[in-house]
């Protein structure tokens, strides 16, 4: 009993023990903050990587793509009805993005998608900017320029009817009233119809004039542009837009033959309307990709059926077939079964198709979204492990510090140890007293550390804002680098418990040597002098 009693009493009366508590608290708080932020970072990356594609991707492996994708998609729904929810093709190509009113150009990866199907197999819709405020208005089909007119009675800007209705739907459904208030405070910036560029930068830009609200200009296919490709990212993570929604932009493309050779001369140019911008949260994608209609892109890239030299027609091609799974289906099992189905499908097709098509069929393989993003996710995972390891290493200081503190305590308590041994305490009991004492120090320190660390993580964005308000150099989290507006601020229970347990064990380890010294105290020597 004396061990429990004295451990509690020493903790209450010995100031030096609170230094041990403080060191354990700070170290466990530090590790918890690092673990939570890096873990949150990793989870966000995984979540966003998952939302990029679909659960399973049949990847062509080449720029020229593979044929019979729609046929295989239908086959999958028949062969694996309990597994496959839907399929949709996607074309990947490369080109040059150009804003026609300037000489401003950028390389781009052009993705051809059937938008209505594409948004059902991933979380693409959630990243569309204008689609949020005007749901149902983002389309990749042919469309005119939406022009905001002026109400002659009030002199205020007036949206075209379809946009106004869509905006009303958003208002009715939006739970974030702050977002509605922000929209009302600054609905959009007007851009002159002849220039389609606003004088200022803001959240939303529409062509506007004094006339009636309307859709005007030639019908052009829509294009969704990666948010970092066209816009300027602000330090708060939002974007400055200047180009009006619906403004024409140009894409220059390089079509390829089924053999992978350039198709015709010169490269073709498409003029499209900028209808929205997309934010996946991954900078490498948002600064590179543009999205156009699948059928239009397939046609322009000559991936649609073309006259063949032998007089027949080539098969339509795509680069990917995205497969959305039903809920609860294991993606690895699904990948394996789809792979087997693809092999069977390929084997059945090879005897009847051209040599080039057979080669392109054989090159296609099924992957899970994790397979495709493995290198990206693995890099973040390694970063998390490395940073946690480094901070964990620093936290070893706590063990040394607890060891030093307990060594000092044992030195000061030599006489007490002699007294305890003189009244029958064993060496193991005395060692146990100091280990228990350290455990109590570790317990108190880890509980306080977990509370402190959790508070820091929960308020880490406010802390950063405070630091940034003091000096811009103190802003350590850059949304431009990390693609996230906010630092991840969730604490996992398992992390908190893990950190707490490790801190307690570390304190125990730190006390082992002092406890051993205490156990070896010779009572006669300890009691000889006052």
């Amino acid at each position, binding site marked *: *009993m004396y061990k*429990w009693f004295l451990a509690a009493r020493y903790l209450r*009366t010995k100031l030096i023990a609170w230094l041990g508590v403080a060191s354990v608290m700070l170290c466990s708080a530090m590790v918890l903050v690092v673990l939570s932020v890096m873990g949150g970072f990793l989870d966000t990356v995984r979540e966003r990587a998952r939302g990029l594609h679909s659960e399973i991707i049949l990847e062509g492996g080449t720029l020229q793509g593979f044929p019979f994708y729609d046929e295989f998609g239908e086959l999958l729904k028949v062969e694996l009805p309990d597994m496959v929810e839907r399929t949709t093709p996607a074309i990947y190509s490369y080109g040059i993005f150009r804003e026609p009113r300037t000489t401003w150009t950028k390389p781009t990866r052009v993705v051809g998608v059937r938008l209505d199907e594409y948004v059902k197999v991933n979380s693409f819709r959630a990243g569309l900017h204008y689609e949020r405020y005007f749901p149902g208005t983002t389309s990749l089909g042919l469309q005119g320029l939406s022009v905001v007119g002026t109400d002659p009675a009030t002199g205020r800007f007036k949206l075209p009817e379809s946009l106004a209705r869509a905006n009303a739907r958003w208002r009715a459904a939006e739970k974030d009233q702050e977002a509605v208030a922000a929209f009302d405070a600054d609905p959009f910036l007007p851009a002159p119809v002849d220039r389609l560029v606003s004088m200022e930068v803001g959240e939303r830009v529409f062509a506007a004039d004094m006339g009636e609200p309307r859709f005007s200009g030639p019908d052009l296919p829509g294009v969704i542009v990666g948010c970092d490709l066209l816009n300027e990212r602000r330090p708060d993570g939002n974007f400055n837009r200047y180009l009006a929604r619906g403004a024409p932009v140009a894409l220059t493309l390089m079509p390829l033959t089924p053999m992978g050779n350039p198709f015709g001369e010169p490269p073709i140019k498409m003029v499209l309307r900028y209808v929205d911008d997309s934010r996946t949260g991954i900078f490498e994608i948002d600064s590179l990709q543009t999205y156009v209609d699948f059928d239009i892109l397939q046609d322009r890239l000559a991936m649609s059926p073309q006259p063949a030299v032998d007089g027949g027609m080539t098969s339509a091609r795509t680069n990917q077939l995205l497969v959305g799974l039903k809920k609860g289906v294991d993606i690895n099992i699904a990948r394996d079964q789809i792979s087997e189905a693809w092999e069977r499908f390929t084997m059945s097709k090879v005897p009847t198709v051209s040599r080039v098509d057979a080669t392109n069929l054989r090159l296609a393989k099924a992957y899970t979204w994790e397979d495709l993003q493995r290198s990206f996710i693995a890099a973040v995972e390694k970063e998390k492990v490395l940073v946690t390891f480094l901070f964990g290493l620093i936290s070893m200081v706590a063990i040394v510090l607890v060891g030093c503190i307990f060594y000092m305590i044992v030195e000061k308590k030599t006489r007490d140890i002699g007294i305890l041994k*003189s009244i*029958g305490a064993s060496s193991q009991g005395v060692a146990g007293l100091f280990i228990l004492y350290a455990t109590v120090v570790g317990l108190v320190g880890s509980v306080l550390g977990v509370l402190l660390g959790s508070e820091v993580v929960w308020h880490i964005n406010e802390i950063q804002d405070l630091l940034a308000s003091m000096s811009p150099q103190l802003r350590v989290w850059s949304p431009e680098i990390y693609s996230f507006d906010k630092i991840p601020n969730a604490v996992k229970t398992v992390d908190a418990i893990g950190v707490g347990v490790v801190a307690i064990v570390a304190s125990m380890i730190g006390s082992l040597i002092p406890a051993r010294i205490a156990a070896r105290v010779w009572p006669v020597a300890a009691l000889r002098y006052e």
Partner: protein
Amino acid sequence: MLKTTGLHKSYRMGRSLVSVLRGVSFTVDRGEFVVIRGASGSGKSTLLHLLGMLDIPDRGRIEFDGGDLLAAREAERRAYRNVQIGFVFQFYHLLPECNVLENVLMPQMVRHSFLGWRRVRSTVRGEAESIIERVGLAERITHRCNELSGGERQRVAIARALINRPAILLADEPTGNLDAKIGGGILGLLAGLNQGGQTLIMVTHDSAVADHAHRRVHLVDGVLRKSEETDELATPSRIGRREVPL
């Protein structure tokens, strides 16, 4: 009750070996009050430590109630220290973080496990309060040691030594750090305990203190020189075993 035979003990001091006890043999009977006298460095405290199993002799034999303590296991020696022996030191040796009651309870806390303590706590606490009252510190029961005088601290040390109803009380210069008046009070307390049947072995070089004992043992350079009885009527063989009233 307690018998030593040919005890030898030496300590290494630097390169030399200092012989402190050189063949000490004597017997203490139940209820006896034995004073061990001798000059500084004669081996008095060392002999007391050996009797209390705080230290191990180089050679010799120590028997308690016929059992060989040196042949006993460590756990048995600890139990002997905890239950059969009560130590009173010259410098009191109280735990400074604890108050009077907690210091007195400490041997009982050492004796019992966490769960065992919950069972006996109220009983033992009552006994401790009774002993504290008996040594005259009922009003100081919640005071810390640093709030007590030297004499009061020694009374706490005596109460702590008595809490487990030990067979033998070992007192090492219990009045050595006190003035004559307070030391006299402590001596009276110890003598009173002996009158109640408590076996008492006291180390002192104060001849006045030694006058209270039944028997005086002189240690000179680690050797027992003579043993004399001071009160024929009070020899233990005639007192017999008596319980210590608490």
